[in-house]
């Protein structure tokens, strides 16, 4: 069990480094590839959190479906590299507003983590792993307590499907 912390740090470092490279990248195709690496590291963290269902969803739906869709569009459009010239400078007013908003955002994040007083206890201390890792239990709760949101999800998907077809079609 003493191995948990180093494993966490390895996955966390991979996730942060890959995500930082995603936004530090001019060519979109590398960005998509690096995001797959980041999501795989997050799947490892979900395993560490005794959530194998979410880890598998992460790999199959996120890395396998959503990011492949991104990859498909990047290749379809033959997306050019981003322009590297200097970006247009903002006027001083909006610049100052941006600085203030960024500081407020950073403060909020720090405050939110700080406020969680219970956060100093080990995350796996209170409850045994079998309380959360069972897919059987997730299915049971999903089809009873969350039956209505689950049904609404199907509506969302059909709207997204029709919307995507309508938007991408040349003549409707």
């Amino acid at each position, binding site marked *: 069990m003493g191995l*948990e*912390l180093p494993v*966490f740090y390895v996955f*966390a470092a991979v*996730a*942060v480094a890959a*995500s*930082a490279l*995603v*936004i530090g*990248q001019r060519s*979109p195709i590398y*960005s*998509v590839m690096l*995001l797959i690496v*980041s999501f795989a590291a*997050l799947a490892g963290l*979900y395993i560490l*959190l005794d*959530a194998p*269902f*979410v880890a598998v*969803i*992460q790999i199959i*739906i996120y890395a396998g479906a*959503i*990011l492949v*869709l*991104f990859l498909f569009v*990047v290749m379809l*459009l033959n997306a050019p590299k*981003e*322009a590297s010239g200097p970006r*247009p400078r903002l006027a001083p007013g909006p610049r100052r507003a941006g600085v203030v908003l960024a500081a407020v*955002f950073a403060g909020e*994040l720090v405050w*939110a*983590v700080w406020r*969680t007083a*219970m*956060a*100093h206890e*080990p*995350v*796996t*201390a*209170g*409850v045994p792993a079998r*309380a959360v890792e069972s897919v059987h239990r997730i299915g049971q*709760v*999903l089809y009873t*307590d969350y039956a209505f949101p689950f049904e609404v999800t199907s509506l969302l*998907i059909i*709207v*997204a499907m029709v*919307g*995507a*077809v309508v938007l*991408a079609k*040349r003549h409707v």
Partner: protein
Amino acid sequence: MVTLEHYLTLSAILFAIGTTGVFLRRNVITVLLSIEIMLNAANLSLVAFGRYWGAVDGQIIVFFVVTVAAAEAAVGLALVIALFRLRESLDPDAFTSLRW
């Protein structure tokens, strides 16, 4: 031992990286990818809190978030294709006809 604070801090870092990407990148596809990073940061804290309280509800909400992300990617990429057809560019600064 790994504490809840570890996961929350990691989630905050990832969320900040995603926000930075949305504002800094000049490519619509990379902006969408940054939004995916932000969604994943939220998912991580949901699962961590769920593990802490011993409830599966966090994982179920992650399931819904993934569905919304899939719908968002489908519609967003359709928009990207339509915009690219219109302007031959992916730079968000090229799409300013609605700007006040």
